[in-house]
């Protein structure tokens, strides 16, 4: 079976089966369009620890049929157990995984990553808790007046 070589940002080289890594649309297009086989593909945005998680995901889903085009689901409950287990990550690692999924164009991984983050936000009881949970630096906070104003506006939308 043909394989593809990848180099992560911390200079680790991976050799992966084409079938496995072709779930990434980026790599698939690169290999098929540019016909690169032997030269390793550099991934400047992806560290080896992130790529390990991505590969775990690819292995779980290697036999999946191509995803249907349907409205975005919100529920974490619908995720398969392996995915839930895989997504038990620190938020900073989660951000790396989402970034890698976006960069490598793996829609399924991006979806479960985003769903998990959205779920964590849902668990927070207010925005103070979200700030704390996601470590949002104080200089980026919005003032209480701005928040009150926006609440009024959203109240209009939801009311």
């Amino acid at each position, binding site marked *: 079976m043909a394989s593809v070589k990848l180099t992560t940002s911390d200079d680790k080289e991976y050799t992966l089966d084409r079938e496995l890594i072709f779930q990434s649309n980026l790599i698939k297009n690169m290999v098929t369009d540019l016909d690169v086989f032997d030269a390793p593909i550099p991934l400047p945005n992806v560290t080896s620890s992130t790529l390990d998680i991505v590969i775990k995901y690819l292995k779980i889903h290697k036999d999946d049929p191509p995803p249907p085009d349907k409205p*975005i689901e919100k529920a974490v409950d619908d995720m398969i157990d392996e995915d839930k287990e895989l997504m038990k990550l620190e938020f900073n690692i989660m951000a790396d995984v*989402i970034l890698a999924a*976006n960069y490598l164009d793996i829609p399924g991984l991006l979806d479960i990553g985003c769903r998990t*983050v959205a779920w964590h*936000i849902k668990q927070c009881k207010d925005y103070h808790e979200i700030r704390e949970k996601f470590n949002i630096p104080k200089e980026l906070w919005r003032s209480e007046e701005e928040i009150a104003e926006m609440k009024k506006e959203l109240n209009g939308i*939801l*009311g």
Partner: protein
Amino acid sequence: MQIDDLPTECVIAIAKRMSAMDLLSFSSTSKHFFEIANDNSIWLSHCKNILKNHSPSLAYLTRIKNAVFKKTHFYKSFKQLYRLLHKYAKFLGLWHPDYSFFIGGLIRIRLNYDNENQFVLVGERIICPYAEMEDIYQLSLDERINIHIQKDTKYQTTKVFGVKMKEGILAALCLEGAHKGTHEIVIEQPMIPENDLPGLLSTISITERIKSQSFPLGPPNAVTGLWGFPISNFGSDATLSGSNSNLESHTTYGSHGNELMLLSYSLETEKKLRVTKITGDVNVPRGEISFTADLNNWKYTLGNTLHNINNSAEFKNGIVFDGKGTVAMEGYQSATKIPCDVIVVSDTQFSVYWYGLEEMGDGWISSFTYFEDLQ
């Protein structure tokens, strides 16, 4: 890396998976997230989600948005459209009213606006007109077979009620016909503690008087958009003719005239077409299966059938499947299944030949829309 270091497109992807309420908390956290939470594509996604029973396309939603915008100069973004849909989308669709068992019928609820640019929920009863004799042409191929074929019959709608949407709490329900007059209904707004925003959903409760008449009961089925049919486990996601909206057909039934049917089919587990009655007649009431067809293999093309109707051009490409049809005495007594041939004539037309009755019925497939008059 932290969540707020993510590029905008990733944060948008996360925001699309949050509820509108969570989006509020989320956008309160930072300036960056606030700007993202106003992104049109997020609200488009929310609009799509809230209407997912109706499988709206982007073009379709944009059409609604533009139509609404043109008319009112107010709902200019998908966020504003969401404001509208959030309140009313749960009422849209096809509902099963509380009509008597043997008649049945459908009420379609859709959004419209009146001449004062106020939004109204309009409820219309969908009926199939009875076939006039001159509309039927007979193909008497065999002495024993009556073929009822009706050309270009369309369903008709009669307005049953309109609900005026006013800012605030009260709205008026105007029933047409026998219950003509204005009745008050209440859009209930739960009390909201000042710093606690969840639970803003408004609900419509209807006064007892109206509830006992012909207002739809309960929410419609998520898959079919219909109320209370015994078909909830029967998915209709798979497509037969490339369309996956709610499919209804009207079918001629000999002496009973036209009736409304629900077509559901699955091509994944058991390849079967199931046709359930929406309107009923004195023999087979609403909600019962009219006929089923085994889609696993077709018996023959019509070119060499015993019906010998290949002379007719419209049956030339027909494919015949084995079917089972329900017949019963008056009052759904001694109901039995008799063999029938289900002939798929085209994407939108089928015929059923009932062996025991020696009768042929015709059906057309149509799908209903909920915004058509907004343009």
